[in-house]
């Protein structure tokens, strides 16, 4: 029997492939940002590893769709009610949708990352084995980032506008995740604060691994799993609370 959630993943993949404009927008954004900041790093002779770091972190961040907007829109318009009438879990549905879209972007942007990074630096960052393991880390990273996005979306049940939270998430990714400025540049205090958040485990860790600067893989996996459990737990608890207090207006 064809599982309904797996069907959602399949439909999302087909839908993302059909939305060529959106894909094109992501590609342009990727190339512009990577090129721009690679120029910044090249002008200060930062080295090829910095450029690869930048290409990888951007690849991972841009692979995730802004699912928080979608959830917020559903809640604001009241469409979420129709999902509640059906025999499926709304957030799990959105997660599967997110995974379908992310898969397409992950693959396309992954090829762009490898190709563009090679064009800018003239060499790959590490061995094929490291890159393959790095690929798995990247997938886990995308899953965690998606869960974070869904958590922000759930706040739409309380907040009329979640755009500030989305921007804050983006900035926290930039700052604490080492999106463009690596964590090695920070002071000890700021680095400690960063590691207390889930962001470094989503970006800095996979990027550092793939550029050959291998942090403790086992420890990192454990911390990563821990953060996934925490965010998932928060989502479940908040969503339950939201459903109890949900009020839908209009006539």
């Amino acid at each position, binding site marked *: 029997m064809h599982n309904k959630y797996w069907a959602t993943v399949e439909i999302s993949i087909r839908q993302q492939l059909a939305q060529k*404009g959106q894909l094109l927008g992501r590609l342009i954004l990727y190339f512009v940002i990577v090129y*721009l900041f690679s120029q910044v790093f090249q002008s200060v002779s930062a080295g090829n590893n910095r450029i690869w770091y930048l290409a990888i972190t951007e690849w991972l961040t841009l692979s995730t769709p802004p699912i928080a907007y979608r959830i917020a829109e559903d809640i604001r318009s009241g469409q979420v009610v129709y999902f509640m009438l059906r025999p499926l879990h709304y957030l799990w549905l959105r997660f599967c949708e997110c995974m379908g879209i992310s898969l397409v972007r992950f693959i396309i942007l992954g090829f762009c990352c490898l190709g563009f990074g090679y064009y800018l630096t003239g060499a790959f960052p590490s061995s094929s084995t490291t890159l393959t393991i790095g690929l798995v880390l990247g997938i886990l990273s995308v899953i965690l980032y998606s869960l974070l996005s869904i958590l922000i979306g759930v706040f739409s049940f309380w907040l009329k506008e979640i755009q*500030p939270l989305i921007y*804050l998430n983006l900035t926290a990714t930039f700052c604490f995740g080492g999106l*463009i400025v690596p964590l090695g540049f920070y002071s000890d205090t700021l680095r400690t604060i960063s590691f207390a958040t889930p962001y470094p485990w989503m970006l800095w860790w996979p990027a550092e691994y793939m550029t050959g600067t291998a942090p403790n893989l086992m420890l990192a996996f454990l911390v990563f799993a821990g953060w996934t459990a925490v965010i998932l737990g928060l989502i479940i608890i908040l969503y339950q609370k939201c459903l109890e207090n949900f009020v839908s207006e209009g006539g």
Partner: protein
Amino acid sequence: MSNHFKHHKYHVKHHINDHFKNHIKFLYTLMMTNFRLSLALKGTFYFTIIITILKQVLFLTAWRFFFLKYQVVQGWNFNSMLLGYGSVCFSMGVVEAFFYGLKDLPRMIENGQLDTFLLQPKNVVLNVAMSKGDMASFGEIVTGIAVITYSGYLEQSPLMVITILILGTIFIFSLLLYLSCIAFFMKDSFDFIRELNLNAIIVASQPNVAYRGLLKMLTFTILPVAFISFFPIEYLRTGLWKYLLFSALGTAAFFAVANALFNLGLKRYESGNIIAFRH
């Protein structure tokens, strides 16, 4: 005959004055309606301001560490970066506070929601732009000014900084309008346009390495953010008037281009071919 002409001239002048006053009154009413709407959602209003300030602090902290490691990047130091970033922040804040409708314009075009505005006897661009306002963007305005003040340029040349901020605001308005026009020619483009907006703002607020190589062509032509970032800051750094002139002329030209593109797109919207078989 001369009395009749004077009488006619009086009526025309009176009519133009009335028309102008009515337009100002309309824009003021729209602005106050948006303001009241923002205050009606009090929690979101204050929350947004706090988050905005926090966001800017985090962002600039990261860049501070970057510039601590590499003091100068292509002639730009941390203060130049602060000025560039601050002016984009301020301009974006003003546009979001008063002309937030521009961000929704692509969706309105796609869904045929421009009809309501076309039925009203007011300038379509301004009516659409001011149909929504996010007063919580005052957080961006305040942090923009704070960042520019911290850079030291406001104390050094206050008049020039104010000129740059005015030009920057007109530019960001034109940029959002310009990119929104893509929706007239490309279907399902709302997400694409949102990404392009983000692109443009990121490029505009970064150090001036954007203005060489392949990106130079882009930032001087198709996406002319050089007029809001590179030229004004080069003027303040070097004192050469040509940079300010380029910035002013470029902004004015871009404003004209954006409006022309909108009118062209509107003709296509009126032809109905955007929504072809939906009638």
